[in-house]
């Protein structure tokens, strides 16, 4: 199981309805990209961090490990804003407002990423996917996504074990061996995926498969109190942004 999904399964908010967590987490993300970066995104970032490490109980180390992935892209992308091309000061010169734009972009992306991480770290995919049918996603697409989700873990586990076996057989000692091993890994993933699909099909056919994958979804109700509190928090962050925007600018 992947670290974020494993954390979601043992989260304090695991049994809350995904809608509750979507209102809070994705609401923070929407605020991060729609409010002015300063102080709006900064407030969203602080709020998301407090909620993640406090009530949601996400371990700081796990959060950092997940958070540094988007941060790498953001820093690389923001660096380009520091320079301008073809201006009067030379072919490549420092952009006059580059640091401000780069800083604002970093703030916005950092805050938005934390909002999604709040949702991801508290909502297992197995709780979310079956409920997408009620949100209007066609059932066959949800079924394909469910099979993809469940088979991905099996394949990733197979890949890890094959990689270990390749390493034990000196499959990563040279460049040629590395390429051969990698190609073997990709081809084996294909073969195993289709083999598993065929065996699943046989098993389901024997159980009267009619084209619908029925899975048990944990019972959960949308909490009016939680949702109202989340909306209140989002409204407070938005209001604080507009109040503080002029004094802090």
């Amino acid at each position, binding site marked *: 199981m992947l670290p*974020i999904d494993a954390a979601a399964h043992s989260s304090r908010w695991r049994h809350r309805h995904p809608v509750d967590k979507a209102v809070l987490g*994705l609401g923070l993300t929407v605020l*991060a*990209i729609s409010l002015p970066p300063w102080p709006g995104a900064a407030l969203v970032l602080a709020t998301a961090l407090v909620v993640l490490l406090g009530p949601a109980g996400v371990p700081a180390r796990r959060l950092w490990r997940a958070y540094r*992935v*988007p941060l790498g*892209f*953001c820093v*690389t992308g923001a*660096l*380009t*804003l520091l320079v*301008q*091309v*073809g*201006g009067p000061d030379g072919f490549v010169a420092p*952009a*006059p*407002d580059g640091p401000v*734009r780069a800083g604002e*972009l970093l703030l*916005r*992306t950092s*805050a*938005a*990423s934390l909002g*999604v*991480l709040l*949702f*991801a770290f508290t909502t297992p*995919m197995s709780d*979310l996917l079956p409920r997408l049918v009620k949100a209007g996603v*066609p059932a*066959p*697409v949800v*079924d*394909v*996504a469910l*099979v*993809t989700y*469940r*088979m*991905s873990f099996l*394949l990733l586990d197979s890949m890890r074990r094959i990689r270990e076996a390749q390493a034990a057989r000196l499959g990563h000692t040279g*460049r040629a061996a590395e*390429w*051969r091993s*990698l*190609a073997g890994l*990709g*081809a084996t*993933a*294909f073969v195993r*995926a289709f083999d*598993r*699909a065929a065996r699943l*099909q046989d098993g*389901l056919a024997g159980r009267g*498969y009619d*084209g619908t994958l029925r899975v048990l979804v944990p019972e959960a109700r949308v909490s009016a109190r939680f949702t109202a509190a989340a909306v209140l928090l989002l409204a407070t962050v938005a209001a604080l942004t507009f109040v503080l925007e002029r004094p802090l600018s």
Partner: protein
Amino acid sequence: MHIAEGFLPPAHAIAWGVASAPFVVHGVRSLTREVREHPESTLLLGASGAFTFVLSALKLPSVTGSCSHPTGTGLGAILFRPPIMAVLGTITLLFQALLLAHGGLTTLGANVFSMAIVGPWAGYAVYRLLRRYDVPLMVAVFFGAFVADLSTYCVTSVQLALAFPDPSSGFLGALGKFGSIFAVTQIPLAVSEGLLTVLVMRLLSQSSKGELIRLGVLAAGKRAATGTEAVAR
């Protein structure tokens, strides 16, 4: 490399979502029709999605010595065709955003456009064109995967340049900046992905010839239609 969460301004995020929607809707319709006619295709399509997801998790040694991940769009498009890849790519990108914090939900439309639409279509077009002129299969596979990978990152550079034009030289200057980071550096990785795809296809043609024939990648005599063959359509 996908555009991270919150990186694009709201108007751009919405616009790329709107641009991607027709392709994804078309793919969803094909997939829904296919699953209704052949219920067993659900499992094969799910397996294809898992394969695409796992492929993007492989570490790829670059010819310059660095390391990256293959996009898998070229191989996916050749095996499963671009309309199906639009849906499988969207599912994969959604999983990557929520399970790996790679990409994002607000940038899903932009990432789908580059990685699940333009990449597969460009790679598949080159592959089909070369096959039409009787270019050997493995050469066509290499160029299909190479173009799919590179076009994905070229589109990403265009998306970023449109969102963040250079203060002095506008869109073109920004395209040069983002292109030099996200597209030019991708050339050796695209070569690597092309080589890897050829190696994978060679192994598959030895170990899974039947599947490749049913998917329509390898030529075959008359065979009974199956769900997999329909997936290929």
